[in-house]
């Protein structure tokens, strides 16, 4: 076994994989949110953004493959760590209060992660697959507005975005802890930034279904 695979099998090595993939996925979400916000510029503006991405051709495909790999590695290592850790206390406590002393977001990291995984599958099928392989030549704007007119779909979307916020509230500062980039000078800033990002992503992504659901029922 090489030093590399040996290192990535250690507990800290596995956490480092989670950290690096997690931070890269965070950058993707940032770009994704910025892209989503072009929808506030109206249908024509949004469609122009979509066709710009399309016009990049193989570059977009390269990014898509990279993203898929990032997601797969992050999910695989996350689930494996959760399963490994679950068996580290074979006999549970009758009364266990220590976990109630910790931050709310830190308690449900893998659970919110699983919710996001379920969403990822639904999201890819209902938007990406339908747009690329739907075959009817539908514009993405129309697909988006049709889905968000459905209250159940919008509610599902919003609940997952709240879960994403909780996931990031823990995950963002946790990444810096795992890298060892902590200091009394800047750790408080990282923690506040993490909270800001959690709210920004949670609210930012939720605004779109909220807006389009209400404009659908308002007819305007």
């Amino acid at each position, binding site marked *: 076994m090489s030093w590399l695979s040996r290192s990535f099998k250690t*507990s800290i090595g596995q956490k480092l994989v989670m950290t690096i993939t997690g931070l890269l996925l965070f950058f993707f979400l940032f770009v994704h949110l910025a892209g989503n916000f072009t929808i506030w510029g109206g249908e024509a503006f949004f469609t122009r953004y979509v066709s710009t991405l399309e016009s990049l051709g193989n570059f977009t495909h390269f990014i898509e493959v990279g993203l898929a790999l990032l997601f797969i590695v992050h999910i695989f290592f996350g689930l494996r760590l959760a399963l490994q850790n679950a068996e*580290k206390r074979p*006999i549970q406590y*009758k*009364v266990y209060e220590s976990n109630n002393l910790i*931050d709310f977001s*830190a308690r449900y990291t893998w659970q919110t992660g699983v919710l996001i995984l379920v969403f990822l599958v639904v999201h890819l099928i209902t938007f990406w697959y339908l747009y690329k392989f739907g075959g009817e030549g539908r514009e993405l704007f129309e697909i988006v507005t049709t889905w968000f007119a459905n209250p159940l779909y919008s509610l599902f979307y919003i609940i997952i975005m709240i879960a994403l916020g909780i996931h990031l509230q823990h995950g963002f500062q946790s990444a810096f802890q*795992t*890298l*060892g980039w902590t200091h009394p000078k800047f750790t408080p800033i990282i923690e506040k930034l993490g909270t800001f990002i959690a709210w920004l992503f949670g609210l930012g992504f939720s605004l779109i279904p909220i807006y389009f659901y209400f404009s659908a029922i308002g007819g305007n």
Partner: protein
Amino acid sequence: MENHNINLTLNIWRQENPSTEGRFDEFKVSTSPDASILEMLDELNNTLEAKGERPIAFESDCREGICGTCGVVVNGHPHGPLPKIATCQLHMRTFKNGENLYIEPFRAKAYNIIKDLIVDRSPLDKIIQSGGFISINTGSAPDANIHPISKETATIAIEAAECIGCGACVAACKNASAMLFVSAKVSQFAVLPQGQLERYDRVQAMVNTMDEMGFGSCTNTYACEAECPKGVSITNIARMNRDFLNAKISSHALHF
């Protein structure tokens, strides 16, 4: 003398040996609020022995919160519900008259129960044996201040060295991770000049042993810091993570 005793119902984990199944036994006691929990258990054991029953097995040594020998989980908290104390410093005035107490051993895959509340914490010793030391010939007592060390650095080292190795961090963690313990033992050397020679080998060897012993990984929930009787900081875990990563990049040892 006026009797200020309080009445408590104790649910205590009883287990004959590592291979038998355990159970909770219930005891009703009347105890002085000034008794520590260990003194209360001593009294209970006297009563049990007088009746010819098997006393409750638990560990203790200094009984002043510095040796790290005692350690049980009381009502879901390692070392009881009060912050920054060891089990021996937990007094019965903490509890209300008539309260129910659950007293359990530290639970982790890496800790085998020897008997009742006594667990085998030797996996922590194995981690120390794999690198928690400096291999220099100390010789006779050196001159004081031969290595100039800043106040800030000395404070970090001493605060890390406050860890008494009781293993409560493992008991508190949902993953039964020993990262707070290991990181304190790594940090106390990592910040001092004497610890530099073996710095990168030490962190890798100790992390590898920690994994082999069956402790979980750190998911940065920080329950360990909240329950640590000495308030050892999770910044030590960050330092260990940093050193581990640096070791992978710059250590000269090829076998890690």
